[in-house]
């Protein structure tokens, strides 16, 4: 049987405010446990919340960036449940009147396809603390959980989409796009490893073409694009197996273990959740007026879609390259730093997406942590373009820059002897010598009629030529001279 996959996402985005949503505690990551938990965050008796203006400003900026209606009058509600990382015994959140109403995001997919995913709404709420389960014991040696409430009260927007996605590819593309939007806006640091963005994926299957939605499951708390993709594949397969065996899907919340590619059901006890939402009586309705919205609109930076269009126009990049670079605000800035040195844009784009990205990935770094600056890469790219250094040589320069050996591209080329020889006279002499030393190969080449094979055989002379030039011969020129001499 053929199935349609239906996916909706709920995405928690931590807002990059300095202080928490309802208290003046710092939101900085990595402090000692409970050192950033104030009386309000700890729900000490009698303490009261006062909302952070920037949380609203950021939420409004987000709403504008996803073409959404802004909730002129929004309200906080209490969502009641007990959990040790939830100090008040309720989460202060928005339900009936969220700050961001319906909107949409357009996605670029593979093979030039595009898709519009509708956003149902986005609401402001407070994050919970963290429970640590490993190696915590009380004085009697009982195994305990440790609670750190530093994160409690960090502002979040929860973005809820319509079930508009039909594959893991689309869901991941949406997630990446959202990441790109919030980091471009500067309202979230986008650091997934620190939980700055977390994804809940709702998945259901229905017979191909059917109008009736199937029962859905929710896979919670995925914190990387890769895990999200794997979790969707895993859950689709699990549901398909059940349905094809004639079984039924149970509506439940599941946890996915990315390291083992396993999932399991979470707490589906007889105790059904009943969150008993009601308006929070400690907080009043928040009214957002035109001037607040206009001020937020004026502060909007260039958004990924606009940037992509500009990259195509201004730098002549193709759709894919423009999309990739424009999607990440920091990567885009790096690229533009490179181009600003006068470097060729296409070549710079190749290096940013190639060598640089590969290296960052390998070392699990973000572009912010790159030891190489955009300007340095720009100067390197310029030296490639003007034939001062070969691609192979350039990679060596890249290494030196990365290791911090030197910051100056030209001096690295000079001291490491990477300057390539482009003197045609000297190169021609080397070609003559090499060809003279390889008569059999020259003969074979001349007898070969298939141009593809001939091209391949040409490569056989390059090794000895590079050796003869101590790696400094310009490969492009060698190639031209070889072709000229052999084909005549």
């Amino acid at each position, binding site marked *: 049987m053929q199935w349609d996959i239906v996916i909706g996402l709920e995405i928690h985005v931590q807002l990059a*405010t*300095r*202080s928490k949503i309802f*208290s*003046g*505690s*710092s939101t900085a990551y990595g402090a*000692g*446990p*409970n*050192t*950033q*938990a*104030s*009386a309000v965050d*700890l729900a*000490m008796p009698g303490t009261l919340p*006062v*909302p*952070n*203006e*920037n*949380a*609203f400003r950021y939420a409004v900026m987000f709403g504008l960036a996803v073409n959404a209606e802004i909730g002129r009058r929004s309200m906080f509600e209490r969502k*009641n449940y*007990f*959990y*040790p990382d939830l100090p008040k015994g309720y989460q202060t959140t928005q339900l009936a009147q969220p700050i961001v109403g319906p909107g949409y995001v357009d996605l670029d997919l593979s093979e030039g396809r595009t898709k519009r995913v509708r956003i149902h709404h986005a609401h402001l709420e407070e994050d919970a603390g963290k*429970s*640590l*389960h490993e190696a*915590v*014991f*009380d004085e009697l040696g*009982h*195994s*305990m*959980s*440790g*609670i*750190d*409430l530093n994160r409690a009260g960090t502002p979040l927007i929860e973005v809820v989409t319509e079930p508009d996605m039909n594959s893991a590819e689309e869901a991941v593309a949406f997630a990446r796009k959202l990441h790109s939007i919030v980091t471009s806006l500067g309202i979230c640091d986008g650091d997934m490893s620190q939980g700055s963005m977390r994804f809940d994926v709702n998945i259901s299957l229905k017979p191909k073409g059917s109008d009736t939605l199937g029962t859905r499951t929710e896979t919670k708390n995925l914190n990387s694009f890769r895990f999200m993709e794997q979790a969707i594949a895993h859950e689709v397969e699990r549901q398909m197996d059940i349905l094809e065996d004639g079984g039924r899907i149970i509506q439940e919340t599941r*946890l996915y273990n990315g390291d083992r590619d396993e999932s399991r059901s*979470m*707490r589906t006890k007889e*105790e059904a959740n*009943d969150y*008993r939402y009601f*308006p929070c*009586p400690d*907080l*009043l*309705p*928040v*009214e957002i007026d035109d001037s607040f919205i206009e001020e937020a609109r004026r502060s909007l930076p260039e958004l990924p879609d606009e940037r992509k269009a500009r990259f195509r126009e201004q730098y002549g990049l193709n759709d894919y390259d423009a999309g990739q670079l424009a999607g990440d605000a920091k990567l885009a800035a790096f690229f533009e730093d490179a181009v600003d040195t006068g470097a060729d844009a296409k070549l710079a784009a190749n290096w940013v997406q190639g060598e640089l990205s590969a290296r960052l990935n390998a070392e699990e770094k973000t572009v912010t942590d790159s030891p190489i600056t955009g300007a340095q890469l720009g100067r390197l790219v310029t030296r490639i373009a003007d034939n001062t250094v070969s691609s192979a040589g350039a990679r060596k320069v890249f290494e030196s820059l990365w290791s911090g050996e030197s910051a100056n591209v030209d001096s690295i080329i000079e001291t490491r002897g990477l300057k390539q020889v482009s003197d045609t006279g000297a190169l021609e002499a080397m070609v003559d010598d090499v060809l003279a030393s390889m008569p059999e190969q020259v003969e074979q080449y001349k007898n070969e009629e298939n141009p593809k094979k001939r091209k391949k055989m040409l490569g056989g002379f390059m090794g000895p030529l590079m050796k003869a030039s101590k790696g400094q011969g310009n490969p492009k020129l060698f190639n031209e001279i070889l072709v000229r001499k052999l084909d005549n």
Partner: protein
Amino acid sequence: MSISREDIEKVAVLARIKVDDKQVAALESDLGNILDLVDQLGAADTSDVAPMAHPLDAVQRLRADEVTETDQRAAFQAIAPATEDGLYLVPKVIE
């Protein structure tokens, strides 16, 4: 309106309050009486009446985004039932 034993048990779980059978019986009558009192609300005609969450028709003030709190962990944890290495301890949380 009466409230059933099952309702009381369910609500007690939601509220995380342990109740034994004897207490359930007493609560059945007490809560039933309170709900009878509350049922007078049904008599009011509230069509076209907007619910009132707050006495005053005011709107929320927003706070400037500034860090104003300092670390007071030692003071707060001095009054905690169980802590270790700066963490609050609770019986193991199983997800």
